[in-house]
Structures are given as structure tokens and as C-alpha cells.
């Protein structure tokens, strides 16, 4: 009898935990959808011009759509598709993709520390499908451990924006009006600012890191020899140098990381 009651209590507990986690996952997914809207719009506008390059390189609408759906990268796709137009070898395509996208490895490393250690393999496989600058940005702006469903909410807007935008660009054969493209691509930078500024206000070290990054990036963009490199490679070099220096000078205490 007692055992029965205990069983009942424990199932009730499990039930409530279960529903709680479902409703919190739904809330996280919704929040991700909401934060993903500027990303989706920005991607759509930029993908249009990618569509034009696809067209010049001889990709059909389906092929361009697939490329964007399966890659979700901007610089990497621009570079590789241009080379495809020049009948490059498969090795060249692999190398160019690797170089243009290497920064995602750094982002995935940082993201790995935001997932619960117990997070299942399958969630990791799905998140990895779309580690982009912007989705990475909104993910790390969340406090504490990352709920994968938040990420999926962002993906649900960003991936269609990017892949459908590419397809539309191929069909239209022309870019969206310049005005719309620049306004929407700056929206993506606005998001980055919304992610880095609030913590910079709270922490002097982060503020220093952000200002140093701005100055170093400006210098590297216009100064030889760094100006010769692609944007992606420059980002990796500057990130590694600045983040490592900050880590050496001001190691983070574990409590600080929780905050």
C-alpha cells in the first residue's frame, strides 16, 4: 500500500518535471524564433546576392538552395561557388571551404562549454549543423546553460532565410535594392552589438577586450601584411591573440563564469 502511494508520488513528480521541461523547451524555442527574426531577414537579403553568384557559376535553383541549406555559411559559400564557376578541383573546394570556415571551430569550442555536459549526442549533432556567426552570437548571449531548443528556434528562422534567399536570388537574377541589403545586413551587426555591449557595461575586462578588438580589427583591415588575409583568417588570428592575452592577464574565476 505504502509502496503504491510512494510510486504514485514519484510518478507525479516525474510527470510534473516532464511537463515543466516541455513547457520550458517550448518557451525557449519561441524565444529563439523571436531572436532569430532579424537573423532570418538579414540572411535573406545577403543570400540574394549569393544567388546571383550561384547563377553565374552555373548552379540551378535546386543546387543553390541545397548548397545554402547544407552549408549555412556566407563567406565560405561565396568563395567556393566562385571557384566552382571556374571548374576548380574538389580538393581546392575543400581547402577554400576549410579556410573560410575555420573560425566556426573556435565558436564550436566556446559553444561546447555552454552546453550541459550531460547534453545528448544527438542535440550536439543538430546544433553543429548551423553554428553561424549570428546563431552563435544569440546562443552565447543567453545566461547559463544553453537550452538546445532555443538554438533550434533560431535555426528555424535563419536556415530558411538563408536557403530560400539563395534560391530567390537565382530565380530573380538580380540583387535586392542596395538600400534594403545594407539596412538588413547592418541589422546583423546591430545584433552583435546587442550581444557584446551589456556584458561590457558590467565588466571592465570585457569592455577592454571589446575596445581592443575594435581597434585591432580596424588596424588589421587596413595595415599590411594582415590586410592581405581574408576576413575569416583575420578574425581567427585577432580572436586567438586578444582572447589569449585577456585569459593570461585576467583569468576568469569560476563564479564569474556563472554570472
Amino acid at each position: 500500500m505504502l509502496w503504491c502511494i510512494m510510486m504514485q508520488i514519484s510518478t507525479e513528480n516525474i510527470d510534473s518535471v516532464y511537463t515543466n521541461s516541455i513547457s520550458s523547451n517550448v518557451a525557449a524555442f519561441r524565444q529563439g524564433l523571436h531572436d532569430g527574426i532579424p537573423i532570418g531577414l538579414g540572411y535573406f537579403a545577403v543570400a540574394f546576392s549569393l544567388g546571383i553568384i550561384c547563377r553565374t557559376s552555373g548552379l540551378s535553383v535546386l543546387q543553390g538552395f541545397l548548397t545554402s541549406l547544407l552549408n549555412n555559411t556566407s563567406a565560405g559559400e561565396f568563395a567556393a561557388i566562385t571557384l566552382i564557376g571556374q571548374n576548380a578541383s574538389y580538393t581546392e573546394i575543400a581547402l577554400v571551404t576549410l579556410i573560410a570556415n575555420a573560425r566556426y571551430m573556435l565558436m564550436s569550442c566556446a559553444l561546447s562549454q555552454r552546453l550541459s555536459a550531460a547534453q545528448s549526442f544527438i542535440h550536439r549533432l543538430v546544433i553543429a549543423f548551423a553554428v553561424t556567426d549570428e546563431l552563435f552570437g544569440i546562443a552565447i548571449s543567453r545566461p547559463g546553460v544553453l537550452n538546445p531548443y532555443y538554438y533550434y528556434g533560431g535555426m528555424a528562422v535563419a536556415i530558411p532565410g538563408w536557403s530560400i534567399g539563395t534560391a530567390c536570388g537565382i530565380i530573380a537574377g538580380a540583387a535586392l535594392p542596395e538600400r534594403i541589403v545594407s539596412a538588413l545586413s547592418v541589422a546583423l551587426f546591430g545584433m552583435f552589438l546587442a550581444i557584446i555591449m551589456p556584458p561590457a557595461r558590467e565588466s571592465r575586462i570585457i569592455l577592454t577586450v571589446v575596445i581592443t578588438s575594435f581597434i585591432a580589427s580596424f588596424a588589421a583591415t587596413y595595415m599590411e601584411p594582415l590586410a592581405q588575409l581574408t576576413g575569416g583568417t583575420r578574425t581567427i588570428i585577432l580572436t586567438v591573440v586578444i582572447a589569449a592575452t585577456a585569459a593570461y592577464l585576467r583569468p576568469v574565476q569560476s563564479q564569474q563564469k556563472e554570472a
Partner: protein
Amino acid sequence: MEHNIYIYIAVMALVTYAIRVLPLTLIRKEIKNPFIRSFLYYVPYTTLAVMTFPAILQETQTPAAGALALGVGVATAWRGMSLFHVACCCCAVVFIVEFIMVP
């Protein structure tokens, strides 16, 4: 030699996925080393800041629009406006400035 576009796409997709999936699946535990922990803690702020500036000046038809959007973005973000609203403000600033300055 003729190349198959679908193989091109597969090559790109595989390389890109490998770059992203390896760290996420191989690093499954919390990193204990204080230096690496701190390094990864600073990576997002550095990398997003590096990608924002000066690129924001180059994305617009006139650098002034980008510069103004940067100013407005920093100010609104600093005051704690939500991601969505900061993005909208930057978007609006660029649209208005270009509307006035670019014929």
C-alpha cells in the same frame, strides 16, 4: 575534367560540418584548465567585436550610414535594449541615412 556540382556541394557540406561538429562532440566535459576556460570565455566578445568593426562601415553604401548605425547600436545596446530592438534601430538608421544621402 568535368566536375559534378552535387559532389562539389557534398564536399563543401562535409568540410563545413566537420569543422562545426568535431569540437561540439569531442569536448563533452567542462574544461577545467583555467587558461583555456578563460580563453573560451573571452572568445565570443572578441570574435563578435572583430567582425563588427570596421566591417559595419563597409556594408553600407556610404560609410557615414554604417558609422551612425554603429553609434546608435552601441548606445541602445549599452542601455540594455533587447537584441531585436537594437537590430531594428540600426536597420532604421541605415535606411534613413541612405535615403537622405544616397540619391
